[in-house]
């Protein structure tokens, strides 16, 4: 704690004369020491003080579901970090080499340089296998958390005006994440990813009018050519990540500009934000969460094997393996391809490969189209032009909730349909029965789920205690034979008591031991008000001094 003299001293008169002692040098820096000096220097040049202070006070509402987007963001950070590591060792080339490495079963085999370098990363580069598996896990988690985050935004109506643009950016990010995931999955040139690539090529081929041209341009000729791996590499490590980073910046920028949405509650309105401040509370929580996500992915990468390409073997166009399945986020498309009837039409000297075009191009186009355009579609239906900063409880928007549930149900059914062969084998029933089950289920189950969800929402609206813990009711017989029912007192933590929100105090005391005890001031207290404030003075009184 510094002396009272130090606090009365201002910056200006500290400039006169050179400091002689350490103590004087410290005093010369002013009441806020080096931090204050750095802020002064920065503010002279950039004018950051006013906006910076507002930013430190920025309020982040608390709700567990607001963490989903953070998982996406931080798994992307892990993707970038591990991806940079991998790019130092990966060779994006289909040039044929003879493998002579530590993995003996492959010794002497002719493989592509891309495949050989991926095997080398897994076995010869220190921590290389961990980095590869972390990268793959992080990609799966990235796409997954985007989907769940998007579902949260959808079901709570957070996409409504003024946030339609951010929904559009976010759903574009999902498409880019899936695309880059597929491209990255194709890079090692192993047997399974090569088969996936061939399927991708044939899907492009199915586009009417231009399919064969597009496929030929992209692959530099007929499949497989020798240019697709280098091209995919530059798309995977530069072009798509750059677009993702830019859109992510815009996504977060809009979030800051438009401020968070929040659930309704005590003191919360359309015109304020209630929660904890950016600095230090939210910053500590979210930075810690970055480390937790990274640590979790590292544990997955170390203990849960993923994509063991050395077991699959190198890609050879005439070879194929059992149980060919893509990463999970492509499963719904694979399922759609499987259950589609073989509707290929020939006419006017042309072929319409609708059995591929409909499930693999048209259908995802419609799905992503609806997803991207949803804010506009809903506005069209509801004619709602109000600004919305308070979130919906899903039960109070039964139609939207039912539609969303049905939409996800359809995607789940298609995801299940991507395992027809595995399911038929597991349940010992004919593939034909499984196929027809899914063909019917893809239409029927979404309807059932939608109706049920709608009904449940309506029912829940009528229950006043929904979401609250039940209290015990004691029914006792009185002496004259009557009955008395008595609701028990709330147990601690039963009643969800909400505090009145208050403005962020100028001085946030984080030393709870002093709270209420009086006496000592908090951190940084020495310089400001004389050094011995009691906590009672924190708040409006101090604010006045600061102004």
């Amino acid at each position: 704690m510094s002396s009272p003299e130090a606090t009365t001293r201002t910056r200006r008169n500290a400039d006169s004369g050179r400091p002689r002692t350490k103590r004087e040098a410290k005093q010369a820096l002013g009441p806020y020491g080096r931090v204050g000096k750095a802020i002064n220097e920065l503010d002279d040049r950039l004018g950051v003080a006013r906006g910076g202070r507002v930013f430190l006070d920025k309020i982040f509402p608390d709700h567990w579901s607001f963490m989903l987007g953070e998982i996406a963001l931080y798994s992307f950070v892990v993707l970038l970090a591990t991806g940079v590591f991998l790019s130092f060792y990966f060779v994006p080339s289909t040039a044929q080499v003879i493998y002579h490495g530590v993995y003996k079963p492959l010794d002497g085999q002719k493989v592509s340089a891309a495949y050989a370098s991926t095997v080398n990363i897994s076995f010869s580069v220190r921590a290389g296998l961990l980095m590869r598996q972390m990268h793959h896990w992080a990609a799966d988690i990235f796409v997954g958390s985007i989907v769940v985050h998007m579902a949260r935004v959808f079901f709570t109506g957070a996409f409504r005006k003024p946030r339609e643009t951010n929904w559009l950016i976010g759903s574009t990010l999902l498409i880019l994440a899936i695309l880059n995931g597929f491209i990255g999955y194709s890079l090692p040139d192993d047997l399974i990813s090569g088969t996936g690539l061939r399927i991708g090529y044939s899907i492009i081929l199915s586009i009417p009018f231009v399919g064969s041209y597009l496929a030929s341009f992209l692959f530099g000729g007929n499949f497989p050519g020798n240019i697709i791996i280098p091209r995919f590499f530059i798309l995977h490590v530069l072009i798509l990540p750059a677009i993702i980073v830019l859109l992510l910046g815009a996504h977060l920028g809009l979030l800051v500009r438009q401020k968070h949405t929040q659930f309704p509650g005590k003191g919360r309105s359309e015109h304020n934000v209630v929660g904890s401040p950016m600095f230090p509370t939210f910053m500590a929580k979210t930075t810690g969460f970055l480390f937790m996500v990274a640590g979790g992915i590292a544990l997955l990468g170390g203990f849960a094997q993923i994509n063991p390409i050395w077991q699959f073997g190198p890609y050879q166009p005439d070879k194929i393996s059992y149980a060919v399945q893509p990463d999970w986020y492509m499963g719904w498309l694979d399922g759609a391809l499987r259950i589609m009837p073989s509707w290929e039409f020939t006419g006017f000297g042309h072929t319409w490969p609708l059995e591929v075009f409909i499930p693999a191009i048209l259908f995802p186009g419609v799905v992503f189209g609806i997803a991207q355009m949803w804010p506009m579609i809903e506005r069209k239906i509801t004619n709602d032009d109000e600004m919305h900063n308070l979130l919906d409880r899903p039960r109070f928007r039964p139609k939207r909730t039912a539609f969303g549930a049905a939409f996800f149900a359809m995607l789940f059914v298609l995801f299940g349909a991507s395992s027809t062969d595995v399911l038929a084998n597991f349940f010992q029933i004919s593939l034909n029965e499984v196929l027809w089950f899914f063909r019917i289920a893809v239409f029927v189950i979404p309807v059932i789920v939608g109706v049920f969800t709608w009904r449940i929402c309506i029912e829940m609206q009528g229950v006043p205690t929904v979401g609250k813990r039940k209290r015990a009711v004691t029914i006792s017989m009185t002496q004259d034979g009557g009955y008395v029912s008595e609701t028990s007192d709330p147990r601690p933590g039963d009643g969800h008591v909400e505090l009145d929100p208050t403005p962020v105090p100028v001085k946030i005391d984080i030393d709870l031991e002093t709270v209420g005890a009086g006496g000592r001031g908090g951190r940084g207290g020495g310089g400001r008000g004389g050094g011995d404030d009691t906590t009672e003075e924190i708040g409006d009184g101090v604010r006045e001094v600061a102004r």
Partner: protein
Amino acid sequence: MPVARLDDPHLKEAARNPKRTENIIAICLVVGILGLAGFGAAYWVNAAPWVIAGTIGVGLFFLGFGLTAWGKYLMPQGPFVEERHPLASTESERDAISAALVERTGVVVKRRKMLGGLFAGGAGIFGIVALFPLLRSLGPVPGNTLNVTNWKAGSLLVDSNGRPVHRDDLQPGGILTVFPAGYENSEEGQAIDQTVLIRYQDVSYTTQPGRESWGPAGYLAFSKLCTHLGCPVGLYEQQLELLVCPCHQSMFNVADGCVPEFGPAPRPLPQLALYIDSAGYLRAQGPYDQPVGPGFWERS
């Protein structure tokens, strides 16, 4: 007004016992430090991957857990409130920018219509012509490449090692992937020309009318490319005489010319007409009578 009071009944358990919470957080952070130090050591000695992963994973997770818990339990939670200032500007500010945009462009466009038109035309033309080199230099136009394979009249059937196939090589029920001689090692040969050779029975077999001479000594050859999405039709179900594509479960009946029996494949696998030369080796009578593999627009 205080940020919080210790006797506040709403205060969380953790905040009422700050010392205990602080100790737990300190333990988490120490575990994090130990984990990360352990990672350094494990990396240095090149320990097993799971040791490296376990140390860095535990280290990062507990370091993060400690910090998050610190933020959640020991830092001020409020609830604090921040006013939302309306994003929209005032009516007059809006009018000012609209007026500037409309009036200034109005002046420019009205006075210099021709210049504006010329520039817009130039930019438009650039936009279109810029696409030409981009698309054209990416790859060749497909031309006839999707319609043809390297199978020609007299092409010798060889296996993946380049060994010609003799009429005695396969027993009935046997199966082999073959290529036209000279293409068995090329990417193109493997990707496009791959053909599945099945010895169906001992004597010549006709799959469909008009293919009487295509299957000498019971040897039937079909394109190995699934007509659905081009996966190799790699599984042969001998009892049912079905070729199965593992990608999307299309099944082709070998006996009647690989007509799709099940699954999304729309067309039969094209059959390659074979003959046996004087030395007893299998050769192609000619190219496939139709394009192989999945459908595309120009396929007629």
